[in-house]
Each structure stands twice: as C-alpha cells, then as structure tokens.
C-alpha cells in the first residue's frame, strides 16, 4: 500500500493531522473471488438488496 507524508497542514488545521492512510487508488482492489472491481462489489450489494426486497414482497404476499 502506498503511503505518503502530508506536506503542509491546510488553512484551518493548525496541527499535524493523522498521516494519510492510503491513496484509495487502483491498488486497493476488493480481492474477492469473482469480483475484481469495487463497482462489481457495489453491484452485488445492490443485487442482494433487490433480492431481499423481492423476497420480503413474496413473504408478504404468501402470509399477509
């Protein structure tokens, strides 16, 4: 992971702040099997959300 030291504190930030932790760049891949990009992970989360809502709608229809 790339780390770099912040050069100057900005205006309005009088003291040293925590060191930047990472760049958030392409090196930070999800590392999940079958999901090589974060876009794919978010798509999976959305798909799970849709699946859960459809599941709940079916549950409502079956029991209500």
């Amino acid at each position, binding site marked *: 992971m790339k780390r770099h030291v912040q050069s100057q504190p*900005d205006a*309005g*930030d009088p003291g*040293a*702040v925590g060191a*930047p932790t990472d760049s958030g760049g392409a090196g930070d891949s999800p590392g999940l099997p079958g999901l090589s990009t974060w876009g794919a992970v978010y798509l999976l*989360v959305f798909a*799970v959300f849709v699946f859960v809502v459809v599941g709940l709608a079916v549950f*409502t229809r079956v029991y209500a």
Partner: protein
Amino acid sequence: MNALDWIVLLGSMLGIAAYGTWRTRHTDHLDTYLKGSRTTGWFTIGVSVMATQASAITFLSIPGQGFESGIGFVQNYFGLPLALILVCAVFLPIYRRLGVYTAYEYLGRRFDARTRLLGAALFLLQRGLASGVTIYAPAIILSTVLGWRVDYTIVGTGVLVIIYTVTGGSVAVSLTQKWQMAVIFGGMITALIVLLAKLPAEALPVAGALGKLEAVDFSLNPDRRYTFWSGLLGGLFLSLSYFGTDQSQVQRYIGGASLREGRLGLVFNAILKIPMQFSILLLGALVFVFYQFEPAPVFFNQAEWRRHAEGPNAERFRVLEQKHAALHAQRQVAVRAWIDARAGGDATVQATTRAAMVEVQKRVDAVRAEAKAALVAADPRAKTKDSDYVFITFILTQLPHGVVGLLVAAMFAAALGSKAGELNALGTTSTIDLWRQFRPLAAHDEARNVRNAKWFTAFWGVFAIGFALFARFSENLIEAINILGSLFYGVVLGLFLVAFFARRVGGTAVFWGALAAQVLVFALYSTLKISYLWYNLIGCAACVLFSAALQLFLPARRPPDAA
C-alpha cells in the same frame, strides 16, 4: 433472575470490559487511540459499525414494534444499503486519503476553520444530548422489570463503559464490541430457538392472518406510516447522514488496515442489516403469536400497572384485567378454530373462522387501549407505551434460567457497545476539532493529545451519566431527542454534499448557507406539522441550495486542493 443468571450477566459484561481494558492498556499513540489498530480487519470494522448503531433500545423496542404493528418497520432500512454504497465510494476514500481523525476535520480542509467548527459543534450538541438518552432509555426499562434502582443501573453501566473506553480508546471500543455482538447474537438466536420450540407449526400463518407480516407496502399514500418509498428515500438520507457524517460511525471505519478493510466492513453491514432487522421484527411478531396461546398481561409494563392498580381506581383496573382474561380465552378458541379450518381446506369455513379470529383480536386491542386510558385517567403522567416491555417480559417469564441472564446480558452489551462508540467519537471530536483548534502549539505533543482525548472521553461519559440521572426524561422527551437529531442531521449532510460535489462553492458561502438552512429548519419546525423525518431532507436541500446561491454573489473559489 437467579444465581445462574447473575453469573452469566456479570461474567460476560465484566469479563468483556476487563478483557478490553487489559488488552488495550498500553495504547499511547494518538493514531491508534483515535482510529484503532492499523491491523484491524474488515470483520471487526463491520461488527463495530453494527454494534455502534444497534443500541439496547434496538433489541428491546424493535421486537415490541413487531408485536404491536407488525414487521413493516423493516422498510425504514431500505435506504441503508444504497447509502452505504455511497459512503464506500465517495466518503471513505476521501477521509482515508486525507488521513483525518474526524469527519469535520475534512470540512476544515475543504472549506475553512469556522465551517469545521460548525460541523463539529452541531455533532457535539446533538450527540452529546443523545448520549444521556442512550444510557437512560435501556436503564429505565431494565430497572423497572428487574426491580433494580435506576440510578444504580445508570451509574454502573456508565462507569463500566468509561473505564475501558478511556483506557484503550478506539481499539478497546472495537475489541469489546466484537465480543458484545457475540453475546447479543448468542442471546437473540437462543431466544428465537426457545420461542420456536414453544410455538405451533402454524405460527407464521397465524401472524400473517392477524396482519403482522406485511413486510413491504408499495402504496404511495402519504398517510401510511411505513412504505417502500418512504423507507427508500427517507432511509437513504438518514443513513447517509448517519454513516457518512456522524463521527460515532465515521470513527469506526476510517482506521483499519486499509481502505479495502473499511469498505468491506461497510459492505458487510449493507448486506446484513435488513435481514438482521427483519429477524428481530419477526421475533416480535412470533412473540405476538405466542401470546395468542398463552396468557398475556393486559399491559406489559407491569410495574407501572401495579402502581395504579393498587390505588383508588383498583376496581376499574381489576375489571379490565378480567375482561382481558376472558377475551384471551375466546381468542385461543378462535385461533385454534382457524388452524383447524385451514387444515380442513374448506375455503368458506376458513374465511369465517379467520374473520372471527380477527374480530376477537380487535376486541383485545380495544381492551388494551382502554387499559392505557385508565392509566392516564389515574395519573396523567403515567407511561402508556408498553411495547418496549413486551420482549423483556417474554424473556423473564418464559425463558429458562441461564438464558434469562444471557438475554439481559445481551441488552447490556448493546447498551455498552453503542455508548462506547458515542463516547469515543465525542472525545475525539472535542480533542481534534476543538482543543487542537484553539491550542495549535500543543497539537504536535502526541502524549498530551492522548491525555486530552482521555480526559474529554471521561468528561462526556460523566456528562452522559449526569444527564441521564438528573434530566427529567419522559417518553416524549426521548422522542424529542430524536427530533433534535433530525433537525441537525440534514444541514450537516448538506455541508458534506456541498464539500464533495459542489467544488466551486467555498467556505464563506457554505458557512452562511448552512446557518441559513438551520434557521429555516427551526422556523419550519415551529410552524409546520409534518413528520420530523422530513427535516433531514429539507435541511440538506436548503443547505445545498443556499450555499450554491450565495456563491453566485461571492468571489470565485480557488481551485480545490484537498478533496
């Protein structure tokens, strides 16, 4: 509670607190104290985010909500996964890239010192007041049913959480939250298993027939309390404010081993939160079915009921109890008749028995409403909301010893976990956004920073205990604190949305735009009669629009350098 319950309760709570304190006793680096260990993985982050959000009230009130109104409340969480995707994609990478300790520190980088101070002040005001309620609300319920003194419960839980949060900071909070969540899940799953063992196979159809299993409602009718649309839109804004800008959450995920770990921790919540809330609500709906077959009290806050039932109106209360008991016998017969009709397969008989079952339930509800009216007649200040007492009553009267201790421990674990997250955030914001802002020369003294963070954390802990002990809380005041949150959350979210997406807007425009939006929210709140949830949306929209409009009359902002 017997000796076994006490051993389970005290063993788990004191054990977790002692373990957290001992393991983190040497935390003396500011970065570790405020952001947690650099080796923290996604699972710990995910559990910590979940534990901070889930307070004891979640596990006491939500089953009660399922009991009383059914599982439709789950729709309130529909905006959460979408909000967490936005936090993962936009908020978190910026916070980590800049290496900030607090969300408001980012506002200082993006705008100026006064905007940072405004964001931090709004957070401290709202979260500081809410911290008293977080400790008071479960204490009053647990003390009432367990017969403990409420002040002892408040001080006991408050001191315990202060000890390990002050000692180990963010590391201790995450470490203890992981074990506390294990106790919570262990307890809730055990309760579900015991409950299922006590229920007939037709429990779900009974709950459905009595209107408790309407999970999704696509209606556009604004009069409906919970719908898919209000949950999606309102939930999106609420969750975005809470997870993206509330330091008690931001602090949970900005640390950790890498950006990946933080993101996966949030994804963990985005996937699990709705199923988790559904399970807790379903537990409440199943407790409702349980009380179709077993005698239930007419009013679940039995301590409140007995206080008035033994007074001058004793006869009225006794008649209500008798009416409720008689209706319970009728209800039992009606439910069994419907189950038999269902097994028989005759549609006409099914419809007739179902209508009879629903009718008896309506009469039971009417008697419960009458009981609440009797309480108010006896004492206008009487607490009439008993749904929070349903699940704890079930636990104490129906579960075996040992499991009772585990479930009470689960409630306290939830209280400690969410409280620790709050104190940690309040201490951090006070240190980073207030103290360091006004003492810039001391900012480079790491040991002094850690020492101050500990003092501020302890201060907020003592403040929360004092507020819980001495403020005169009522059911309405607890709601008032929620209203207070909604009045501020929208404007704070607006500040961050401008920071992220309106790159031409500078500090002066956003500062005055936010103040104007806050004044507008207060003005609307004092004149309009709309649900307080709408103020999240109004405050946010007003802040963004006012800031953009003001910027038109101000000199152009320098090209952005921080974000």
